[in-house]
């Protein structure tokens, strides 16, 4: 049924949030590793 509201779309929501955590977590890890390698 057409309601004018986008139905579902959970895969986009999950992808967006998962990607945010992955990128920010990955960058945090890269900072940690670079810091450890220099010290």
């Amino acid at each position: 049924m057409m309601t004018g509201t986008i139905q579902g779309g959970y895969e986009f929501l999950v992808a967006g949030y998962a990607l945010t955590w992955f990128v920010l977590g990955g960058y945090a890890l890269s900072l940690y590793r670079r810091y450890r390698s220099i010290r």
Partner: protein
Amino acid sequence: MQNSKSKIQSFIVLMAVAFFLFAQYWGLFKSPPDQLMGHVQKLMYVHVPCAWNAFIAFFVVFISSFIYLIRKNPFWDRLAASAAEVGVVLTGLTLILGSIWGRPTWGVWWTWDARLTTTAILFFLYVGYLTMRSFVGDKDRRARLAAPLGVIIFLNVPIVYMSVRWWRTLHQVQSSPSTVDPNMVLSLRLNAFAILFVLILFIYHRYQIALLKDKQEEAL
């Protein structure tokens, strides 16, 4: 003394992570779906805070570069480089999140809309800034070359911000607590502050790496 400083730093990191997770939970599960976009609209709570904080990072680059030009103190150059790197990460994330949000709402992953195009240009300008820095070995020369660039390329930030008003764009006008539904304001603010804390921590730790590198170079 060093041990207690390390403990305080770990505590601050843990608090920032806990606040970030709480804000994400609130955005995902406690905020209402949009009347038109449904649950997909909740991507706003990551997309918009990433964009705002990327702007803040680039403003730090601008101010630091400007002060370096006057004072010639390496502190400002290190701060500019650190903020630029974090800003690039957040701008890249903003672009990808916008693409993921655009597919179900606009029907396309990408379009040459003014906001999208100017944001992509912004991303590549700062990638260029970081690339230029990586090519110059001497740190004083690197700082002298990077500072004017850090000032000039900031000009694109207000263009990106105003692009949705200056041109007819597919992208909606700026999302802010005054333009979104009152039920969504808390989630937007929580996530904006959560990513602001992440931004500050990232810049701080990236700065420590730059400082250690400079000390190592001086020791050689």
